[in-house]
């Protein structure tokens, strides 16, 4: 029906003087946008199918291609934006729930960009990280409240299990199923080289990757897919996934069609059977119940592994975190509302949850006030985009950060936000072998290592500038931060002063 017709969002501009009709673009586009017209001997395209992933642009040997917004608009309206109108047409046509992927792209404030970092001048000299030692090593886990000695005065070790990270950055949970085998391999190998951790997400652990166990965090979600004793003991830590920033309060449903081959084995469910993760864990209706799951996991792993509880940043996040800190968990991971996803209902992704900056500041403050900050380490995620975001997050009170979208970008993701179609042209959010093999695991691993190494340099440089030579001295050091263009209320929640104060 004409009402459902949208003029294509993007226009593919092909320079006819440059195009040599090599048909690379045709082979590279899984969305079948490009084709060769035998009659005219020219390339043609169907712009309507393009998701703007830039794969063809990047591989065209003569730089003949570019993708531009087509410029077609409805009559301008600040209330009824083009997007809202198109969404109604889509739903009127299908009766379907709108489905999107990757993080919330809407124009909400990004507090990281309204926070500035300090540097020393004259007093408290800055430190040159290239010449002087800088410590970014981070330990995640419960910190002891007292020193224990035996009757001879010798120290009795009473340290709970810790995760040791060379940098305060971990790769966040992305399941095998949501992302490809090759993407998982890159994350695992990079984590091993750098000295940090990647996270299986809720899809179980592929048998090939057990060997990266000491750099692996294994996840337990409500569907309990692939969870068994060996899996729990394979990783360095166990994460209980309660929620995810992109879709707080929502379960997951990987349709049976996607449960094929290795995915079925790794999740330990039959091929073709739906993988439904209920919205809650049905054995957790209270903090006491959470305590029970935490301890059953600790019992299953002989108290040797820290347990992480991952929650989405929602309105009462500080109170919830206080409960989590008392549940016996060693680490809490908080995922902000901009966090990515392989698929989430658009309305949930774009309207539910709160920004990680505010959630993190509120949680750290609350745990300090209650005197239980040492009970638990904090990992924050949900759009950490660069090393400055990391520094700001640590100064706001995080022990470490999760990065996921940033890691995928390093692997080649171009944020086309089409992961839910399963046609990722970069071999990341897809299970199609011909697409997966496009992600070269040696190159991908190296890219991740490069990115983290660069961020590490930048972090120590910013620390040095502040006259700080240990990440410990930056943690929760909000005096190193100033707000810009923020209201008194926002500054109060963030616990920072305004620039100039």
């Amino acid at each position: 029906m004409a009402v459902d017709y949208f003029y294509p969002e993007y226009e593919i501009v092909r320079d006819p003087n440059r195009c040599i009709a090599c048909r690379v673009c045709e082979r590279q586009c899984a969305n079948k946008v490009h084709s060769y017209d035998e009659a005219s001997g020219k390339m043609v395209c169907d712009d309507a199918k393009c998701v703007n992933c830039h794969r063809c642009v990047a591989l065209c040997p003569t730089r003949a291609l570019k993708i531009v917004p087509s410029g077609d608009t409805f009559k301008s309206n600040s209330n009824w934006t083009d997007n809202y109108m198109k969404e109604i047409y889509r739903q009127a046509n299908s009766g379907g729930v709108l489905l999107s992927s990757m993080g919330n792209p809407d124009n909400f404030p990004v507090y990281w960009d309204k926070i500035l970092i300090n540097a020393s001048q004259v007093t408290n000299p800055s430190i040159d990280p290239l010449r002087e030692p800088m410590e970014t090593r981070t330990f995640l886990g419960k910190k002891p409240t007292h020193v224990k000695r035996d009757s001879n005065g010798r120290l009795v070790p009473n340290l709970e299990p810790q995760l040791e990270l060379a940098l305060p950055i971990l790769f966040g949970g992305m399941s095998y199923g949501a992302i490809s085998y090759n993407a998982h391999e890159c994350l695992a190998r990079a984590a091993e080289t750098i000295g940090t951790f990647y996270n299986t997400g809720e899809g179980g652990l592929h048998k090939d990757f057990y060997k990266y166990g000491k750099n692996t965090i294994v996840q337990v979600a409500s569907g309990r897919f692939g969870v068994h004793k060996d899996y729990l003991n394979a990783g360095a830590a166990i994460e209980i996934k309660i929620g995810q920033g992109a879709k707080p309060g929502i379960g997951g449903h990987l349709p049976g069609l996607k449960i094929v081959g290795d995915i079925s084995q790794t999740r330990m469910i039959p091929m073709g059977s739906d993988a439904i993760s209920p919205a809650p864990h049905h054995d957790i209706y209270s903090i006491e119940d959470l305590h029970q799951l935490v301890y059953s996991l600790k019992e299953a792993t002989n108290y040797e592994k820290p347990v992480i509880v991952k929650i989405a940043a929602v309105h009462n996040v500080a109170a919830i975190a206080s409960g989590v800190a008392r549940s016996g968990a060693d680490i809490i991971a908080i995922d902000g509302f901009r966090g990515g996803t392989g698929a989430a209902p658009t309305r949930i992704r774009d309207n539910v949850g709160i920004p990680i900056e505010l959630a993190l500041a509120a949680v750290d403050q609350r745990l300090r006030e209650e005197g239980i900050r040492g009970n638990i380490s904090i990992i924050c995620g949900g759009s950490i985009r660069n090393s400055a975001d990391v520094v700001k997050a640590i100064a706001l009170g995080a022990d470490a950060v999760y990065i996921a979208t940033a890691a995928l970008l390093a692997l080649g993701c171009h944020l086309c936000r089409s992961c839910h179609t399963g046609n990722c042209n970069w071999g990341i959010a897809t299970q199609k072998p011909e697409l997966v093999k496009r992600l070269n695991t040696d190159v991908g691993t190296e890219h991740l290592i490069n990115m983290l190494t660069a961020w590490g340099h930048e972090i120590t440089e910013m620390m040095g500038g502040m006259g700080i030579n240990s990440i410990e001295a930056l943690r929760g050091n909000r005096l190193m931060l100033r707000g810009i263009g923020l209201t008194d209320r926002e500054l109060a929640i963030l616990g920072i002063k305004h620039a100039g104060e």
Partner: protein
Amino acid sequence: MNINAKAMHFKDLNAKIRECDDSQVVIDNCLGQRYIGTGLNHKDIIINGLPGNALGAYLDGSKIIVNGSTQEATGDTMNEGEIVIYGNAGDATGYAMRGGKIFVRGNSGYRTGIHMKEYQDKIPVIVIGGRVGSFLGEYQAGGVIVVLGIGEAGELPVGYFTGTGMHGGKIFLRSDHEPQGLPPQVICRVATKKDKAAVMGYVSEFCANFGGDPAELLNQKFYLLMPNTANPYKQLYVNN
């Protein structure tokens, strides 16, 4: 080995069980200790008393016999092995179990068999002698649940909302009455001889543990619940 669990903390009790080299551990005076037998294999446990929540969580091959009742989440995410309960079981019995068997002589609480699933040669089984609470087999993705309703005089031995979200596996109810208000994604019919033959082995094992005549039990009317493959769960999405 015998362990007197009187006033013992669960951590100490479970550490003792883990460290013990015997092939059988008997726990006396058990009262509320949680996580007994977590992830255990190669070792059987006999419990005299009332174990706490999450008995046999992630169980990996051991047999646990409880001379008494259990509390919540018995056999949570169990992978292999057997749990035999001479009393009643609490809520969420067999939560997300993937393999092994749970036999309960008496009743079981809410959400029994929630999110059970099967995989390759693993087919988890729960047999309840008496009745169960609401939400039996919620989100069930595989495995077999049998509710015998012994002593219920043919009344329906389940609460409300049986099979909500069920998308795999089978539920057998010994009852003269068909459960009402089932979701459209679940079909229910009177079990045939052939259907019953498939669970004969499980009912025989139940009777071997607790007494009773399997043939006589199976002679009576059973209803069989299964997912309706003609009407699967689908929330229609539209790409945005």
